[in-house]
């Protein structure tokens, strides 16, 4: 699995949680750029990503991820172990 594939799959998760028909995530996208990405939907996105990629984030990892690119990197690290 490569970063682009993770990004594509995350895009689908974001669309489902945020109830959007289309969303163009990029590496720099962060919570302030996306309508509806708030505390509650962030929890849902993290939880859905954990289930989808069969991984578990640590809280300290979550708070260090400042944008979608860093989220992809963290997932990539975990799935390649």
């Amino acid at each position, binding site marked *: 699995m490569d970063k682009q594939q993770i990004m594509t799959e995350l895009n689908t998760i974001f669309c489902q949680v945020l*109830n959007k028909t289309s969303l163009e995530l990029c590496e720099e996208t962060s919570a302030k750029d996306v*309508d509806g990405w*708030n*505390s*509650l939907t*962030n*929890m849902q996105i993290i*939880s859905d990503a954990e289930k989808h990629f069969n991984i578990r984030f640590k809280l*300290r990892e979550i*708070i260090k991820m400042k944008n979608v690119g860093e989220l992809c990197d963290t997932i990539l690290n975990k799935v390649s172990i």
Partner: protein
Amino acid sequence: MSTTFDELIVRPLLHSLSSCQDNNAFYIEGCFYSYRDMAEAISKIRAVIKNIPEVNVGLVANDDIETYASIFALWLEGKCYVPLHPEQPIQRCLDIVSQVGMNYILDSSEASRYKDIQVIMTHYLSFDKLCLEYTDNFSDDTLAYILFTSGSTGKPKGVPLSRGNVAGFVDAFYAMDIKLDSNDHCLQMFDLTFDLSVQSYLIPLLVGACVYTVSPKRIKYEAVFELLDEENLTFALMVPSVIHYLRPYMDEIDAPSMRYSLFCGEALPLDDTECWSRCVPNARIDNVYGPTENTIYCTDYIFNREGENKESNGVLSIGKSMKGTQTIIVDEKNEILAANEKGELCLAGMQLTPGYWNNPDKNQEAFFLKDGTRFYRTGDICTMDSDGDILYFGRKDSQVKIQGFRIELSEIECVARKFYDNSIAVVAIPLYDNNRNCTIQLVVESTDRASADTLTNYLKEYLPPYMIPQRIHFLERFPLNVNNKIDRKKITTLL
């Protein structure tokens, strides 16, 4: 001891500014600001606002030193701040400006979004000399701030709080026996449009402690944990949803430095509190309660780590009235109920607002006199036991709380109906998931699904982000109940 605003707030603040100059006053976006920095920022702003002839001044509620300094500069001049949220729709903010009749706004942004009004760009003012003298004696009836909360008629309603109200709160806070000093690290996680911010920035500054703010750009519970983890917070007032969201990670949280952990703004689940208590092993945990109308909070329950806690439906008691507040539970005829009987919680005392801003109808409805004392109807259905401890059971109206934000569902409905020129029925429904998280769903009596996106964009023009429905549903016909009214319960089951 005197309980005036000057004695409880102005004098201690001036003392902190002069005697704790090298201490940190604020930690904002990774930068520390000393009390000297704060004194200089207050002075440069005060020098300019001296010339403003009006009492009520708009304040763009940014997260920076100039914005906090503006509050104190205004108070030293006997003026009142009216926070205007930088992320809320300009239409809503302009409505607030117009309701109060303000002609001046303090704005620390690089460029202001306000036109046709006098804007003082505080970030660009230069410091000349310290200006912290205070000889005036402003009446405690003078207003300290006006906050606007969700209004059921589709417009935000103003709640003015006087200097005497704020002094009443500080006096009651000291009676809680929470002892802070200049070594404390205190959390400020609230937007300035939310009155819990006043406790969070004010109490620490009165003792020369440091206020750690949460950037509005961040996901709140993550930013709170980061501060907890890296800055050794010792005093924190939070909304319960912060620990609710942190719940899956609690085995990773260890904050032995925390001495006082307070919760307010929404119902506090007992199970979340028990888990949280293990993360903050050395902290006293308090569940405090109060509407904006009675200044920040006015009842307090101290969580018992060792034994039983008072609760209803898994929600912790909101405790007893604090110093200076009178609490009663009444029936529909305003008669005081016996212990443990369910009724509406009403509040009176030092912290009670003089009344809604220019809103005689709402004042008539929300306030009443009983035996010569003026009470406020909170709309909260509660019981009080023989010890005076209050249990919360729910609302008597359609107000809901999401992450502490007060939301009148009828305000959302009112704006949505306007979008359809009042020709189509809509209902806003709070929906709770298995983890008790609440989202707002809007249901429209129509089959025109194509209007969903334009409706959402319209709502965003008038409502703050936390009031925007997560989903819009369409139903051809709304079900009716036996009284021929829209059956909200039935609609909820259809979503």
